């Protein structure tokens, strides 16, 4: 009567072994994927390329040779200088204050011999077939970085936050549509202030 039937417990001692086995399997098969990079948009295909005339002062040609040396405005420079040179070129705002191109938010030197306004300023990357891809990416990175720095500056002035943060929030799936619409408008505006004009002319 007083006997209690005891339910036998399952021995969980081997649980750790099984879990370890699975763990090791996943550890071995895991590859942390690299899925980040520099986004660029290629120009549309046109059957007969048009040669567009630009004022020489609005051009910022970057030449990269087969050995990875950089030539900017007929001067050999170091990659470390490229970003600051690009910024001072884009942000120069050399147009006359009465001219429609005049850029009132630019903080550059207003040098008459450099670019008129950010929307007029064009950066060209000329590479040779022998140029190494790594160098090309470094140049692209520095030039995109120059634009991002300028957009960040304007974003801080207008919206008191970084342009990169705004983009990140826009990309985030948890952001509400209302906030997204507002962000989109602001991001567009910042992009219009400093449009990314990096071209690769065909020789």
């Amino acid at each position, binding site marked *: 009567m007083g006997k209690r039937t005891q339910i036998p417990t399952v021995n969980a001692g081997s649980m750790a072994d099984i879990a370890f086995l699975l763990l090791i399997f996943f550890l071995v*098969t895991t590859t942390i994927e690299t899925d980040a990079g520099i986004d660029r948009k290629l120009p*549309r*295909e046109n059957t007969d390329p048009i040669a567009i005339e630009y004022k020489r002062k609005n051009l910022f040609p970057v030449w990269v040779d087969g050995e990875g040396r950089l030539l900017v405005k007929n001067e050999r420079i170091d990659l470390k200088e490229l970003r600051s040179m690009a910024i001072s070129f884009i942000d120069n705002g050399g147009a006359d204050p009465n001219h429609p191109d005049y850029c009132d938010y630019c903080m550059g030197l207003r040098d008459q011999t450099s670019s008129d306004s950010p929307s007029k300023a064009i950066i060209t990357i000329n590479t040779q077939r022998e140029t*190494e891809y790594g160098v090309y*990416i*470094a140049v692209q990175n520095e030039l995109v970085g120059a634009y991002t720095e300028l957009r960040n500056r304007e974003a801080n002035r207008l919206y008191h936050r970084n342009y990169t943060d705004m983009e990140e929030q826009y990309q985030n799936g948890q952001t509400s549509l209302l906030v997204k619409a507002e962000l989109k408008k602001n991001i567009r505006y910042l992009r219009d202030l400093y449009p990314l004009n990096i071209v690769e002319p065909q020789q």
Partner: protein
Amino acid sequence: MSKFKKNNTTVPEVSTASLPDIVFMLLFFFMTVTVMKDDNLNVSNELPNASEIKKLEKKDRVITIHVGRPNDRLVPVLGKEPRIQLGDKFAHLSEIGPYVLSRLTSMPEALRPYAVISLKVDRKTHMGLIKDIKQELRTVGALKVNYTTYEGDVFQNLE
């Protein structure tokens, strides 16, 4: 004194009952972050570093093109000239266009405008080949390109 003498001097065993829990925790972590490899790489693929990078968020709209020197075990057969790898096969330059288009058609229609070409190019590749690839992509109208890189200091690329 006598109180101490009574004490058992053997150290009690550490309980391992919580070990499975810890291991399971690790297991779940790895299970959730794991991305299964979908194609075998036949080319060396040491990507360059960059800092101004954006993440490729959604995997379903990415078309990857690998470029680089053939693997060490394939060098005796194929030489050291950089090759293009589409899916898991080597391909000729002229096959890029058809490959991209066929990948696009297998995508849901709503995603096609957002398709991104992820160029995973070894840092030692010469720009000539990249220019040709970009030209091929332009002819089929695949204009959104992501130069996939590692996150890091760009000045290391020059070494």
